């Protein structure tokens, strides 16, 4: 027994020493570096966080910037993690999700030379942001309106559903736009609405998403729009299982169940992230709240090889018409 232990210890030590590699951490001066901090659900949610990550990779690819990203394990780590990146002299630090709003506010003030951006920034009424903090917000209601038009034109039962993640004003925008769009296309359409929960974990509960979706399909709903992060993976799974339709959110999720995802309301978090990095590089970065909508391609609906069979010419025409009307201002989409 003693010999085995001794051998094991020696082996470990040998492996430890031989396992040494050149530290990749040693950064050269003058390299532009971007740090990204993820929300609940994290990298790999195929939705909101992944969209931000794509934007980061796009920028890294095009401008050759270095990047690092992490997902805070406990709430207190949000602020501490941001500070660590700022102390390490990262040039841009991007928080993905409104949960970073408060930490961003306090860290940005302490590091005026670092640029910060927060996706879905939870802006306070009458708040002025520091010059080095950009709050990136989206007019989700506009894109939701368009997918609502498509849902209402596609449904055979005349009943459509909505499944939101956390029950908060941000997600109410999705719901309100969706219902307004559906009514615009088909005033008689009936809607069923459900939320997964009241805490951030509501965005990371695929099992509950599937349960809620199956419940709605069982009641005659045949198209469900989800705005629920990785919870929506369960909704899409349910659509496939029940032979019904789901509408994806944030990222293009059409590929996740070809033929069963009617379309996706794409929130171009990737574009916003990419543009933020670009603006710092070319010196045009400005603090303050910045809104993205249909007009600047910050919001879109997805048509690709996985769903083109589901979108008829009539539907395509109607949705394009609505899009033009929203951009022109002749349709004003409600936010709640």
């Amino acid at each position, binding site marked *: 027994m003693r010999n085995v232990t001794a051998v094991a210890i020696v082996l470990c030590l040998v492996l430890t020493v031989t396992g040494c590699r050149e530290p990749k951490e040693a950064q050269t001066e003058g390299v532009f570096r971007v740090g990204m901090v993820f929300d609940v659900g994290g990298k790999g949610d195929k939705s909101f966080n992944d969209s931000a990550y794509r934007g980061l990779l796009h920028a890294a690819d095009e401008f050759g910037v270095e990047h690092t990203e992490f*997902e805070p394990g406990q709430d207190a780590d949000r602020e501490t*993690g941001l500070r660590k990146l700022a102390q390490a002299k990262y040039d841009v630090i991007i928080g993905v999700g409104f949960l970073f709003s408060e930490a961003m506010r306090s860290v940005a003030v302490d590091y005026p030379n670092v640029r910060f951006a927060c996706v879905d920034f939870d802006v306070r009424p009458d708040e002025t942001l520091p010059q080095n903090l950009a709050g990136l917000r989206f007019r989700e209601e506009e894109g939701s309106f368009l997918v609502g038009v498509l849902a209402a034109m596609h449904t055979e039962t005349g009943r459509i559903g909505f499944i939101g993640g956390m029950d908060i004003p941000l997600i109410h925008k999705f719901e309100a736009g969706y219902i307004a769009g559906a009514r615009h296309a088909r005033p008689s359409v009936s809607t069923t609405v459900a939320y997964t929960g*009241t805490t951030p974990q509501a965005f990371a509960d695929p099992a509950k998403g599937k349960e809620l979706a199956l419940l709605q399909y069982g009641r005659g709903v045949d198209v469900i729009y989800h705005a629920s992060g990785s919870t929506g993976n369960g909704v899409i799974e349910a659509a496939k299982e029940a032979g019904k339709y789901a509408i994806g959110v944030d990222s293009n999720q059409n590929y996740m169940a070809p033929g069963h995802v009617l379309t996706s309301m794409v929130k171009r978090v990737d574009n916003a992230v990419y543009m933020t990095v670009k603006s710092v590089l070319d010196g045009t970065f400005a603090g303050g709240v910045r809104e993205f909508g249909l007009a600047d391609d910050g919001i879109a609906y997805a048509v690709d090889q996985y769903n083109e069979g589901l979108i008829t010419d009539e539907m395509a025409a109607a949705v394009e018409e609505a899009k033009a009307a929203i951009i022109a201002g002749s349709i004003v989409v409600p936010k709640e």
Partner: protein
Amino acid sequence: MKRLARFTSVLSPVAAVAAAFLVGGLVVLAIGESPLRIYGILFRGAFGSVDGVGLVLFNACPLIFAGLAVAFAFRAGLFNIGGEGQLYIGSFLCAWAGLSVSSLTPWLAIPLLVVAAAAGGALWASIPGFLKARFGVHEVINTIMMNFIAIGLTSYLVVNVFKEAGQMTPQTPKILASAHLPRLAGAARALGIPLPDANPLNASILIALAAVGLAWFILYRTTLGYEIRAVGLNAAAAENAGINVRRTLVLAMLLSGAFAGLVATNEVMGFRHRFLDNFSGGIGFMGIAVALLGKNTPVGVLLAALLFGVLNTGALEVDVFTDVPRELILVLQAITIILVVVGNEVLTRRLEQRVRPAEATGADGNADAGAATGEAA
């Protein structure tokens, strides 16, 4: 016997921690990284700067309270895994008190909120404590269920009743400013320690240290503490000796819950200054691990909490600056606990085999020896 038992109870956690680092090193190696580099970054994060040390203490602080809660109940033979629920209720009551009072001098506001925090935890723990004492219902099941109720209840209250207006984050407004516990950066600088202003370390760590002393005092210097330990070692014998077992169980649970509730001093009064829904993320459960590693003694809990504070602080550094996922640290913590439990069992058995003949001569009333052998049972 005494000395040997004391030696074992110190040796087994230390050996377990060392072994866990070795196994963790193999895990790091398996994912193609150098353990030396990763551990280097981990310890640099924790000890490489005054800021890091401050974060270690900040991260250890709630674990001290949670660990004391579990250890205290354990000494009475109760397995309180409801620390999570108790700390939520304690924190909520603490925040509520801080929102209800409009102006008060710090000398009154701070004690008021501390009492509210402890009372909230004690209140929540008293229910399974009472059920255990009155009906003999097992506390493990009840404390788990009370966790769900506490998390759900506080979540409901924050989202529907107390939420800060116009905000998406599920949190209450800030509590009364005079009830904030001061950060220690200023005091540290006065002592010549360059702790940055942004460091979240606050006066709650002093309350935690006082709680360690208080737990020690109650356990080893009061009649109640003696009764708690007696009931924990053998309830039937304690009953025969004239100890009111039911009363002792309820009181042990109350005190255990109060320690858990004091987590609020760091999370609500010291750091966030408000109640944030779901803020804990398992501090109460981590308390079980801390108590186990600390052998259910107050000083052991303090040391174990500091170790976990080091791991949590280093974990963030590893997470931010390497490709190794933070889950590695969770693996490390889990391995430590398993090895402590296994090591304790093995060492205790060996010890018993060796000293059994000598032990037949008389009962061993020593607290530490009693703890070491009692826990293995």
